[in-house]
C-alpha cells in the first residue's frame, strides 16, 4: 500500500470513528408543522393531515382505551396524533419531560397531567400555553362544561380537566360471603369501616383492609372536612387539629386496630399497589381508577367478585366530602401549532370518559350520561357490578367533592415532607406532635424561602 493510499485509509477510518461516536449525540428538532398523506386500500392518497405530538408513557401507548380516543379523534378531524414515547411510567416520565421542555426545542405539543401537583409545577413555572385567548376566540364555554374543575393560575387557564376520579371502597364479595357478613352499602363512618374489617378478621382473615402509601391517606379526614392545606397567609395549615386527627387515625388503623398491614410492614415487605387484587383482603379504599383492574382479567385473574360502595366519613359527623383527583391536559408553551393542539385538548377533555372509564370532569352531563358510562362498564364486567351500584357509590350520595391532592406553593415538596415526617410517626420514631410540627416547619421554611427568592 503506497503512502497516499495509507493516508486516505487512515483519514477515512478517523472520520468513520469520529462520526460514529458523535452520531448518538444528535437530536431530532423537527418542529415544523408536518403533513402526512394517508393511503387508502387502493393506494390512492386520501387526504392531508396535520401531525400533532403528545407525550405518552409506555403503558398509555398500549392502552387500548386511550388508543380508541386517539383513533376517534383522528377519524373525526383532519389531524393525526403522533406519540412521543417516554420510557418509564407514573411520575417518573415527567422527569424526562421536564428536560425536554426545558430545552425550549421540544416539538411535542400536548401534555397529559395525571394529577394536579404536576399541573401546578408546569403552570407555576410558565411552561404551558395559557389557553384563555383560544377559549375566548372560539367562545368555548368552559364554565358551563367544566365548572369548578377548571384550575386557574393568576387568572390564566393552562389546561382542561379530562377526568375527575373519585374515591370509593371496593370490597371482595367472597370474603364477605365466607364470613356471613352483609356487604357494606349506603352512608357509613370510619368507625363502621374499622368495625367491618375487624369482623372479617374474626372470621379468619389476617387483614380486613388494604390501603397504600400515598400522601393523601395521611390527611384524608382533613380533606373530607374541607380543611385547606394552606393558611390565608400562604403558610402550611398542617397544624390544624384535623390533620393531626387524620394522621392519628391512619396510624391506628394499622398499628392499633391492625385491620391492615401497618406502614412498616407495607414498606419492609414492599407490598404492591395492586395488592387488593390478590383476593386476600376484604376492603380497600382507593380512587375509581382501580375499576380498570377488575376489567383486566388477563393480568388479574380472579375467582371472586367485587363490589363497590361509598367512602366512609369522619365519625364526628363534621366531614361529608368525597375526595377526587382531577387529571388534565395542556399545551406546550413552545408548541408550533397551538390552535390545532387545542382541538385535541378539547376533544380529549370532553370525550375521554367515553373511552377510558375515567369519570368525567364535566358538570354539564346529566345523570343519564353518567349512567351510560356505567352501563358500558357493567357490560364489560358481565354484570358483576351494576351501573346503578356504581352510580350509588360515586354520585348518588350526600357527599360533596374535594380535590385530594395538594395544590399550591411547593406542592411537590409538601407532599414529600408529609410522607417523610408522617412515616416517622407511623413507625413509632416520632410523636404525633413532633411529626406535625416538623411537617409544618419544613414546609413553612420552603414557602418562605421561595417567597424570598
Amino acid at each position: 500500500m503506497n503512502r497516499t493510499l495509507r493516508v486516505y485509509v487512515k483519514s477515512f477510518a478517523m472520520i468513520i470513528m469520529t462520526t460514529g461516536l458523535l452520531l448518538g449525540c444528535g437530536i431530532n428538532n423537527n418542529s415544523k408543522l408536518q403533513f402526512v398523506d394517508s393511503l387508502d386500500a387502493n393506494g390512492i392518497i386520501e387526504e392531508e393531515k396535520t401531525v400533532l405530538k403528545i407525550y405518552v408513557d409506555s403503558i398509555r401507548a398500549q392502552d387500548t382505551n386511550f388508543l380508541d380516543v386517539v383513533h376517534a379523534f383522528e377519524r373525526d378531524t383532519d389531524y393525526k396524533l403522533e406519540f412521543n414515547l417516554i420510557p418509564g411510567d407514573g411520575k417518573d416520565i415527567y422527569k424526562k419531560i421536564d428536560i425536554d421542555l426545558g430545552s425550549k426545542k421540544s416539538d411535542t405539543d400536548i401534555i397529559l397531567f395525571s394529577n394536579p401537583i404536576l399541573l401546578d409545577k408546569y403552570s407555576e413555572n410558565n411552561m404551558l400555553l395559557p389557553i384563555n385567548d383560544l377559549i375566548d376566540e372560539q367562545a368555548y364555554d368552559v364554565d358551563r362544561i367544566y365548572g369548578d374543575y377548571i384550575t386557574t393560575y393568576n387568572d390564566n387557564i393552562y389546561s382542561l380537566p379530562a377526568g375527575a376520579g373519585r374515591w370509593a371502597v371496593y370490597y371482595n364479595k367472597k370474603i364477605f360471603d365466607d364470613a356471613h357478613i352483609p356487604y357494606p352499602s349506603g352512608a357509613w363512618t370510619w368507625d363502621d369501616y374499622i368495625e367491618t374489617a375487624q369482623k372479617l378478621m374474626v372470621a379468619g382473615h389476617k387483614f380486613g383492609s388494604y390501603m397504600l402509601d400515598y400522601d393523601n391517606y395521611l390527611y384524608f379526614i382533613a380533606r373530607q372536612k374541607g380543611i385547606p392545606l394552606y393558611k390565608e397567609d400562604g403558610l402550611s395549615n398542617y397544624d390544624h387539629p384535623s390533620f393531626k386527627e387524620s394522621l392519628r387515625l391512619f396510624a391506628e388503623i394499622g398499628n392499633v386496630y391492625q385491620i391492615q398491614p401497618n406502614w412498616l410492614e407495607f414498606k419492609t415487605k414492599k407490598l404492591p399497589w395492586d395488592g387488593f387484587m390478590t383476593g386476600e383482603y376484604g376492603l380497600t379504599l382507593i380512587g375509581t381508577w382501580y375499576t380498570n383492574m377488575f376489567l383486566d382479567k388477563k393480568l388479574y385473574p380472579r375467582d371472586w367478585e367485587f363490589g363497590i360502595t361509598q367512602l366512609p366519613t369522619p365519625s364526628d359527623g363534621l366531614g361529608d366530602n368525597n375526595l377526587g383527583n382531577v387529571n388534565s391536559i395542556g399545551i406546550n408553551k413552545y408548541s408550533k401549532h397551538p390552535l390545532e393542539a387545542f382541538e385535541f385538548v378539547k376533544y380529549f377533555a370532553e370525550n375521554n370518559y367515553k373511552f377510558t372509564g375515567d369519570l368525567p370532569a364535566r358538570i354539564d352531563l346529566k345523570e343519564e350520561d353518567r349512567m351510560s358510562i356505567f352501563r358500558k362498564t357493567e357490560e364489560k364486567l358481565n354484570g358483576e357490578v351494576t351501573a346503578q351500584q356504581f352510580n350509588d357509590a360515586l354520585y348518588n350520595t350526600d357527599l360533596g367533592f374535594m380535590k385530594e391532592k395538594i395544590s399550591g406553593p411547593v406542592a411537590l415538596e409538601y407532599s414529600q415532607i408529609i410522607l417523610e415526617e408522617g412515616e416517622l410517626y407511623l413507625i413509632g420514631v416520632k410523636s404525633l406532635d413532633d411529626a406535625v410540627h416538623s411537617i409544618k416547619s419544613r414546609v413553612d421554611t420552603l414557602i418562605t424561602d421561595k417567597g424570598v427568592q
Partner: protein
Amino acid sequence: MRSLRAMLRTDEARAGLLFVLPFFIGFLTFNIFPLIYAIFISFVDYNTLKPSFNFIGFDNFVRIFHDHIALSAYVKSFIYTLVYVPGVIILSFLLASLLNRKFYFRPVSRTMILVPYVANVIAIAMVWSIILDPYDGPVNALLNLVGIDNPPLWLGGVSTSLPTIALINVWQNIAFQTIVFLAALQGVPKDLYEAAELDGAGRWRRIKHVTIPMVSPTTFFLIITSIINSFQNYASVRSLTNGGPGVSSRVISLNIYEEAFTYNRYSYAAAQAIILFVIILIITIIQWKGQKKWVHY
C-alpha cells in the same frame, strides 16, 4: 520536551493518535465537558422549568449549609462509607486468602462468588427485602429462635437502614475486590513465606509481615476506588429504601438526584455535586499522601 508536531512525525505515532482519538473525544464529551458545565451551573440559578442563567455567585453553596436535609445527607454518606469500605476490604481479603488455598470445588467457589456481582440491583433489593423482612423474614425468625426478642428492623429501622444497605452492598461487591486481592496474593513470592517460616514466624506473623505489606499497593487501590464508589452509591439506596424511613438513609447521591430530577433545582443539585467532588478529592489526596507510610511498592 519534543513538540507535538515532532512526536507525530512517525506513522506509528499518528496511528496511535488515531486509535486514542475516539476515547479522547468521548472523555472530553462525557466527562470533562459535563464537569465544567456542572461547575458553571452551580454558580447560576438554572432550573429546567425556568431556564435562565443568572449569575448568583456562591448562593447555592451557602444555601447547602443552611439545608439540614442536604447536610445530613453528606453525613449519611460518610456513615455509609465507614461501614462499607472496611467491610468490603477486610472481608474480601479474608475471602481471597481462603480461595488462595487448595480445597475441593475451588474453581466452582471462585465462580460462585461472582454471582452477586453480576446480579441485577432490583433483584437483589427484592431478595434482601424478603430475607430481612422484620415480620416474616428468615433472619429474624432465626434470631427469635435463638432467644432474641427484639431483633433489628433492618431496612425498616431508622438506625439500621443505612448500615444494612452498606452490608448488602458489601455482599454484592465483594467479588471484584476478592478477585483483585486473589491476583495480588498469587503474586507474592513463595520464598518469602519459606524464609519467614525458617525464621520461626507463625501463620499470623506471616500474614502480618509478608502478605499484608506485599499486597499493600492493591489494598491502596481498592480502598481508593471503594471510597469513591461508596460516596457515589445511588442505585441500591434507591431500590432498597428510597432514602427512608423518613430521611434516615438519604445519602448525598440520592439527595442530588431528587433535587435535580424531582424538584428541577439543577443549579442547587450541581452545587451539592461539586461539594461532593471536593470531599472525594480531599479524601483521595489525603490517602495519596498517607500511602507512603504503609504502601510498599
